[in-house]
């Protein structure tokens, strides 16, 4: 399991928190309208539309080369879109040069000024705004403290560790109180432990200062851990834009499903709406439920389901149905319950959890059993089931 399992696997419904409520932000409402951009004769951004609320933390998540940085650079003003518009707080800034926008940007390579001290780096934006030296150094000291670099103002960037450099870059970006904070793979040059620590710090800092923030990353753990919303991108287009829980549990496309973590893909036919979702017939007879992405499919239409292993619950099949002898019981027939019956084919101990592989009529289904759950034996007949809100139903591509 590589996905951000810390944020999922709970039974509670995804929290549709209102990101705008954060820290009383009123500034930094970003709107991208139909942005297209070609580079080197290739269209790398193909029609991006999105709206960010003030104070929101949005992540552009996608594989390398999908156009994330290109999109970010159009927001920053380093690139001009071929078509489309960039608006901040209702003002069209599409053609405004970068130096006249109010954006703080942080790069993977830190991009510090090597011949300036840390304090001078941080105060650079104020210097460009003709702020006096005394006020500059006072503000720089405040921001050094904000990012936990107190007393390091007189050092040069080369004397800092990677994490300290990135903190400096962050302070340098924030000191100008930008409309938007743009982070382009800011943690990718750091080692794994530091990466996790710094992203938590950045998340906390962002909530404190309330600056509308776009993070660009190819790391789904990172995206799931810090974002209010995630825009999953592939080949220059947004495949899904939603809160992390929804993106994780109810992927809208094959691409999102595969990119954001491990997933069970099940094909079937739509079988009408249910109270908590939509029914779907798998392998001809077995009914399961899922939540349609977009408009609900008509009955009998071919559909595809995505279910994360964490969302799958494995239950032992009642004796009667399993056909392991014994007289017919009076218990309710298992067929009345939604679920996909199958045989346990393998179980794997993964430290904090157990992975269980079940062979069903629709192919293998993988389930992650929660810590402490009873592990079914090999060959045991079981039912795989899930809540409708933990599976997505899409038209079959």
């Amino acid at each position, binding site marked *: 399991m590589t996905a951000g399992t810390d944020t999922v696997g709970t039974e509670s419904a995804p929290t549709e928190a209102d990101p705008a409520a954060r820290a009383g932000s009123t500034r930094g409402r970003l709107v991208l309208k139909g942005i297209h951009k070609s580079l080197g004769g290739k269209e790398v951004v193909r029609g991006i539309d999105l709206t960010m609320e003030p104070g929101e933390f949005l992540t552009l998540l996608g594989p390398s080369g999908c156009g994330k940085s290109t999109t970010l*650079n159009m927001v920053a003003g380093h690139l001009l879109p071929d078509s489309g518009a960039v608006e901040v707080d209702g003002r069209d800034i599409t053609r405004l040069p970068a130096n006249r926008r109010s954006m703080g940007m942080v790069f993977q390579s830190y*991009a510090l000024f090597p*011949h300036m001290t840390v304090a001078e780096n941080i105060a650079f934006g104020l210097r460009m705004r003709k702020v006096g030296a005394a006020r500059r150094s006072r503000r720089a000291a405040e921001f050094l403290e904000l990012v936990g670099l107190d007393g390091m103002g007189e050092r*040069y960037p*080369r004397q800092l560790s990677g994490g300290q450099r990135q903190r400096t870059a962050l302070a340098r*970006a924030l000191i100008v109180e930008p409309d938007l904070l743009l982070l382009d793979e800011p943690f990718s040059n750091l080692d794994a432990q530091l990466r996790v620590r710094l992203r938590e710090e950045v998340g906390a800092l962002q909530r404190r200062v309330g600056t509308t923030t776009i993070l660009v990353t190819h790391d789904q753990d990172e995206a799931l851990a810090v974002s209010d919303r995630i825009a999953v991108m592939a080949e220059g287009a947004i495949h899904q834009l939603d809160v992390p829980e929804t993106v994780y549990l109810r992927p809208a496309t094959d691409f999102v499903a595969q990119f954001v973590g491990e997933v069970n893909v099940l094909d079937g036919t739509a079988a009408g709406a249910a109270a908590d979702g939509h029914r779907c017939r798998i392998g001809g007879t077995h009914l399961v439920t899922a939540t349609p992405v977009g408009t609900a499919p008509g009955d009998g239409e071919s559909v595809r389901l995505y279910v994360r292993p964490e969302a799958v619950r494995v239950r032992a099949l009642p004796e009667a149905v399993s056909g392991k002898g014994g007289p017919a019981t009076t218990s309710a027939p298992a067929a009345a319950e939604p679920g996909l019956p199958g045989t346990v084919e393998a179980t794997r101990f993964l430290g904090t959890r157990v992975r269980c592989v079940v062979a069903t009529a629709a192919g293998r289904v993988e389930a992650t059993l929660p810590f402490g759950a009873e592990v079914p034996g090999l060959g045991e007949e079981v039912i795989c089931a899930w809540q409708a809100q933990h599976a997505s139903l899409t038209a079959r591509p």
Partner: protein
Amino acid sequence: MTTAREAETATATEASGASGKPIAAGVGGRARRLLGAVFAALVGLFLLAPVLVTIASSLTTTSYVTFPPKGLTLHWYAELLNRPEFLDSFLLSIGVAAGAAVVSSALGLAAGLAIHRYPFPGKAVLDRLFSSAFAVPTIVLGIGLLQWYAQLGMASSPLTLLLAHLVLTVPYTVRLVLAGLAGLDRSAELAAAGLGAKAPRVFWHVTLPAVRGPLIAGAFFALITSFDDLTIALFVVTTDMQTLPVRIFNYLQYNYDPTVTAVGTVMVLFAAVAVVIIERVVGVAHLFGADPEN
């Protein structure tokens, strides 16, 4: 001096390596160290001898150049004052050298930026040309320039001399600037722009500091190369307009009095002063972190 130190280090390493033989080690080690020191001294002497001989023989009381000097006098330095043509030549050389330093820095910066940043037709050819310009023998360059200037009807002037020297020095500054730019993170410029810096200020605050070291080194190289050049100047100068090396060269064909060694000593002094000044400037640049890794 570096040579001497390296020789010492090498010997010391060998000496410690020999400590596998316990008894002979002490004696052998000491002998080796001594040998190393002698070798280093010899190398140093070999490098410095011509300069020392020139300086010493400029002090002789004889009317011909001789070493060791017979007696001690500053007569030949006083004699220099009676020869204004040496002063004229010195001023010409200094002027052209300073011009070469300034112009090749500016051109080197412009060409380096263009090659580093922008695609343009012939860019690859130009880049290749700048890297291989050193390989052209200066005498060939001199002959070629003589032809060119004749074809173009350009009369000899400090300007034609400067142009000739630029052919030597610009490729070098371009290479240096390119090396400097290769070490500059392009995102730093984007970051500066995003923080409100207009293009000229981005250049001033971010781009220029990255190539400051290379520009100083390039200017120094151009200054010395131009000041020192005899081969090309021989083809480009006239009897009225002679650089100092040409003046000395011509003078030596008919005279062999210690005036030339006095001039030579002055040139050495000038070069030494230039080195000290540059060292100061580059040293200051160091303080400001122009050279991050040292």
